[in-house]
């Protein structure tokens, strides 16, 4: 297992390098620069920076260097896990990420856990009661939840639950002007975004689990277990569910980038100050170092999450061995 983990860690390096290279040059190719953002914000008739001042800031940000030199300089620092400073705020990129990521993890992580907790019983019952009214209702609802985009559900939820019914706050993660509200208040702010994210995920996971369960319960070993007189509870929970969960773990691992990538939209809708909104702002601002840093961080996160998913196979199924 250790050898396997070491190999997987090593194999991440070229992936990370490719991600860094791709993102770095793509962002460089985008029209406009952080300087336009900084000084064009007023978009007025003002004169902008005079030539010497403009030259000075370009030099300071390293934007006067050829693109490949900028890339090499960035890469050398990144190799030491130093993603540089934000071109705009001059704060270390890693510091901004560390500040923001826990908030995204709180939102998307809670939604992920909730969606798994909801999806398991729904998927199992739906499979066991195949073609029943319950199965049709669950299947129809799942398709509906998967089909409607999250941003639409989010906006609709804000309108209904916040504006009309006034049950939940409109957005943010704490009352205006506060940072550390009591747990219950924080949870109140989380309810709507978490439900919006987990609704779609739970529906999707339930569909996968239903398929997995249907496949497993038709296997011989499940029939054997039943013929031995084991209770249905034991047959399902001990013999069928663990096997049906294996593909779900794979799906969760694969979908992690999508789930966390979705934070960009959800955080914007709910004014949630996480890494998704940081990403969107950095892109609009052409804060090159920030955009590349965030992408590298996401790449690392997803690679590690997938590694964990692979390791968890071994925990679930002893037949799976690595190395």
């Amino acid at each position, binding site marked *: 297992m250790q050898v396997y983990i070491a190999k997987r860690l090593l194999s991440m390096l070229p992936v990370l390098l490719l991600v860094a290279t791709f993102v770095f040059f793509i962002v460089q190719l*985008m*029209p*406009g*620069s952080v300087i*336009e*953002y*900084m*000084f*064009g*914000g*007023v*978009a*007025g*008739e*003002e*004169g*902008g*920076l*005079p030539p*010497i*001042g403009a*030259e*000075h*800031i370009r030099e*300071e940000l390293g934007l006067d260097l050829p693109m490949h030199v900028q890339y090499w300089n960035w890469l050398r620092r990144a190799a030491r896990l130093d993603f540089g400073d934000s071109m*705009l705020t*001059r704060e270390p990129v890693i*510091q901004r990420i560390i*500040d923001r990521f826990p*908030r995204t*993890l*709180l939102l998307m*992580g*809670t939604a992920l856990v909730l969606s798994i907790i909801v999806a398991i019983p729904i998927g199992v019952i739906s499979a066991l009661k195949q073609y029943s009214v319950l199965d049709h209702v669950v299947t129809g609802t799942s398709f509906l939840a998967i089909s409607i985009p999250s941003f639409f559900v989010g*906006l609709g939820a*804000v*309108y209904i639950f916040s*504006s009309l019914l*006034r049950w939940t706050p*409109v*957005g943010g993660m704490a009352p*205006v*002007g*506060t*940072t*550390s509200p009591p*747990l219950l208040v*924080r949870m109140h702010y989380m309810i709507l975004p978490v439900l919006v994210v987990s609704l779609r995920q739970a529906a999707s996971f339930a569909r996968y689990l239903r398929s997995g369960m249907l496949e497993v319960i038709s296997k011989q070993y499940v029939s054997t277990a039943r013929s031995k007189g084991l209770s249905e509870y034991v047959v399902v929970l001990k013999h069928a569910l*663990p096997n049906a969960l294996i593909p779900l773990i794979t799906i969760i691992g694969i979908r992690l980038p999508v789930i966390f990538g979705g934070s960009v939209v959800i955080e914007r*809708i*709910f*004014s949630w100050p996480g890494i998704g*909104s*940081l990403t969107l702002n950095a*892109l*609009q*601002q052409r804060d090159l170092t920030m955009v590349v840093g965030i992408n590298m961080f996401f790449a690392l996160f997803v690679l590690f999450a997938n590694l964990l998913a692979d390791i968890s196979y071994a*925990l*679930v*199924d002893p037949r799976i061995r690595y190395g």
Partner: protein
Amino acid sequence: MINYKRLRSLLVILLALSMVFVFATACGPEEVTDDPADEPADDPADEPADDPADEPEDVPTELRMGRSNPPDVLNIFRARGGATAFPSSQIYGLLVRWNDNQEYIPYGAESWEVSDDDRTYTFHLDRDNVWHDGEPVIAQDYKMTFELACNPESYAIAYADLQSIVGAEEYYEGEADEIVGIEVIDDYTLSVTTEEPDAVLLLGLMQPVVPHHIFGDVAPADIDGHEYWRKPIGFGPYKHVEYVTDQYLRLEAHEDYVLGEPGIQHVVIDYSDSTNHLPMFERQELDWIRAPRDEMDRVDAIPHAKTYYGGPYGYQVARINMNQERFQDVRVRRAILHAIDRPGILEGPGHGEGEIAHSPFIAPWVDRSQVVEYDYDPDRAKELFDEAGWDYSEPIEILTFDSPRYIDIASIMERNLDAVGVDANITLGDFTSMYGRYSDGDYGFYSGYFMFSADPHTLANCWSSSGARNPETGYQNPRLDELFREGRATLDTSERAEIYGEVLGILSEDAVEIGLYGGDTSQTAHENIVGPDTRGFYHFMQFQDIHNLWEWEWTGPR
């Protein structure tokens, strides 16, 4: 075989981790503050709505404002965009300011006189003016600020406005250690001498002032990285208390504010998505918002809402790149003006609130009698295109932003141009992309929004051949250059009114831009707040119609 015990362990671990993670993250101090040391977890300021001091009369002491663009940085030598402008205008102070008629009146200077040759201004500073940390504001503060604003190592952001001062050019070029034309006579007397009389000197001197007792020994190149910007000290109406990055900025009244103590003790600027502001206002989570114009019916239905309508401080405009040969013929530009249904644009995307921008909206005292107005007349447009020998096979690319108002405007222009046989297509992008292309001159037709300033001389930046923004437009006219020189050197307002009246006449006759409309503005506040203005300026430090925030007051409960 499946290992049931392992599965159970995995599920238990997953559940336990999720619980720990939810509790740890929900309760943990995950926020970034400027200065964590001064923000205890149980700071009573964290509970704005329940300030015990309010209880006797139930009148709040805090105003919660909704704005969408958080300031990236409060370094006023580096950032002058709208996001930085509003908080800066509350924190920093000025030497002089405008009154409602945009005449200069005292602020940090309680009076001033101008020498007989109109070249030297002597300012007498207010002796009661103090910084937020209690230090007196002295002449050295102003001198250092104006010099830093001209120093390339601190980006020389105001050099264009201050270059007429004696010695400014030498200082900017690195040939002098100070601007000799800015002289500290004593702690409370400052003089500024220009090479020639300069009508826009006072506008140039409206720079946010920073303290000499903090920056006096700091090299200009180290200014940007200085700790000061995390919690700046100014002498504006409000003190910076706390900025939680991208979430909110908390301000507190500067009780010794030189113009009088602010009426509201605490201000919290909440930086959430603008689409959330109206529902937050409905729920009384915010006390002040800018509601979308197409939602005013919904605003009017809110019992506690009071909306203040004001005039424009900017205008929608389409710029034509006259560096391109096909747009150099004035008949083509006039044809475009006739082709575009500007009344329709004002009625549609502009909601019928505002006026058509036949000329840039500048100081009201400028004579507009020479402005040429172009009616919506597609037949005349076609004639002019034909006369100019327009190549109908060559399309016009309309650059604009990917937001509804800009898309609507561009769509109307696209249809209007198609109607006269001109092939037009729209390219959308975010602000930085599109403005970047405009700044690089990589455009033919750019539809955007431009602020206007109080002094008509700011037009020179675009339309005089030496203007910093002139290369983007590609328009040059020796008569205009002459008028701009004359206008800057003339201090008499009535004479300037005529000079810039002629400037407007030439600009409109030459159809240098497609002025669309100046849209009226509005702000919505709680009905028990008094003070919001209907007069909108645009100046970095005298910001829109919320420039007089310090005069606002709560008169009743929230």
